[in-house]
């Protein structure tokens, strides 16, 4: 059953918003005095299901929030932690801000790149890892630091990287 199509983007796959996702987005809307304030919460609900926000999800979510699809797309593409392209099962975020720079994060980043064999902004062919840079993680006394999914790892050395990454399947 086709729930929604976007006439401006005929190639967009039809998307069926799951009932529990719809309910959760509606719950988020109640926290605000204006429905669109739940935009980021809603995009995160979709992303939790798929790992990213598929094109087709934009229109039905925008409808729930009472805004246009291009408006929601503008929000989705602004925020660095909302993914508008498929990502790997594990997203590695390497802090490259000044406190980690002063603690030589580059050697850690190089060790990651060497281990997974893709560069920043790329996903491994087996869809296991995506590597991204990230803004200061607020753990500068334990630099260098990275996040993998929701886990923060600190005081890293290049030697620790292979074993650490292998924990994430």
């Amino acid at each position: 059953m086709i729930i929604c199509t976007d006439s401006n983007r005929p190639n967009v796959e039809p998307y069926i918003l799951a009932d529990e996702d719809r309910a959760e987005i509606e719950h988020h809307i109640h926290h605000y005095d204006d429905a669109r304030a739940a935009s980021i919460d809603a995009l995160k609900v979709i992303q939790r299901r798929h790992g990213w926000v598929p094109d087709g999800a934009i229109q039905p979510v925008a409808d729930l929030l009472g805004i246009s699809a291009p408006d929601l797309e503008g929000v989705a593409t602004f925020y660095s932690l909302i993914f508008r392209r498929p990502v790997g099962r594990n997203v590695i975020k390497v802090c490259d801000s000044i406190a980690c720079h002063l603690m030589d994060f580059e050697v850690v980043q190089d060790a990651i790149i060497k281990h997974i064999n893709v560069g920043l902004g790329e996903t491994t062919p087996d869809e296991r890892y995506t590597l991204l840079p990230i803004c200061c993680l607020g753990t500068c006394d334990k630099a260098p630091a990275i996040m993998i999914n929701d886990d923060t790892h600190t005081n890293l050395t290049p030697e620790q990287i292979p074993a650490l990454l292998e924990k994430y399947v």
Partner: protein
Amino acid sequence: MTLPNNNLGEIKPLTYRIVDNKPVVDINEYEALDGYLSVRKAIPAMSPADVQAAVKDANLRGRGGAGFPAGIKWGLIPMGPDAGAKYLVCNADEMEPGTFKDRLLMECLPHQLVEGMIIAAYAIQAKRAYIFLRGEYVLAAKHLNEAIEQANAKGYLGENILGSGWSLDMHVHTGAGRYICGEETALINSLEGRRANPRAKPPFPQIAGLWGRPTIVNNVETLSNLSHIINRGADWFKGLSQGKSPDGGTKIYGASGKVKNPGLWELPIGTTAREIIYEHAGGMRDGLELKAWLPGGASTDFLTPDHLDLAMDFDTIMKAGSRMGTGLVMVVDHTQSMVSAVRNLEQFFARESCGWCTPCRDGLPWSVKMLLAIERGEGKPEYLDILQQLTRQLGPGKTFCAHAPGAMEPLQSALKYFRSEFEQGIAAPATAAATATA
């Protein structure tokens, strides 16, 4: 009420309850440590005007980096029965590179922030309070949500708080990245579910903020101070600086970079960077010498070892040509290149620019391009002049918000104090000619 830690509470109010970094999330445990005493004391016995006056008297200056007095900010909020809906927003989007103090306060003492927010919201008679938390702070989100749920169950939040007739709803909003969300008006746009572009000011948020309504945005550390000011009074608060600064209170200072013992310490405001770096952080690692330091984040001007004995307070560091910012010091050692450090900083600012206004969107990547060339030793002779011009053209008054001016602070100070390092990256004419014909 007498408590075992009470004398420590007198001098380190923000952190005395944190023992061995163990979080206090259970409300009963927190109440046994004087928790929510300020709420029971102020509501309903004190009027909102009384609470505002107490904070104004204490001269609590905003701990997010700007140092604007919280009591004066609150004083701009319309009060009275016709004032309509108002909001309190806690800026918990801690993303200033080098800053990790709010993380500690939220992970380890979430109730202290909730308690402070109840006091602030009561003072301005807000009906709803939001904590704008960066999405990466997963543990802080968990602890804050638990704290809010427990405070609701105890009647410190919700309808008709402690029989005052005043109600407050509190909610944690988690972000999805972008440094610019920490800018007050960009934060409000983001909270409304929009792109985090800053807004033109005036009108200031105190008049027209969230959904066009009067809104106060305060930092985590600022709000965390409020319960203590209500409990112990403005005079006690002013005395916390122990004569080290005309400002009152403590400050959570910190140090990162290649020091022996990086970390966070709650100290009297006005403590010197020398004490922070050499006593608390144990000095530089063996074999390293201090070359430069950033007083409080990426958007503050570099200072040198000559400035180590200045009081780390807003006015003193400002007079020295920098800003205290968040007060978390980053050290650069003598083996590190200032050109590389500044290139790293400008790459960060260029990536995090929201793109709203031209000087920032185009100027920052331009500076990165030149810095990368200088770092490789391939800088053109005119680059230093162009970089110098950019520090003015991206400076205060040229852009919507403080992002680009903040980005120019480390650049202009590095050019001032370490110009020779930049000059070394300018290709000699012969080399440049050889490269051109190669």
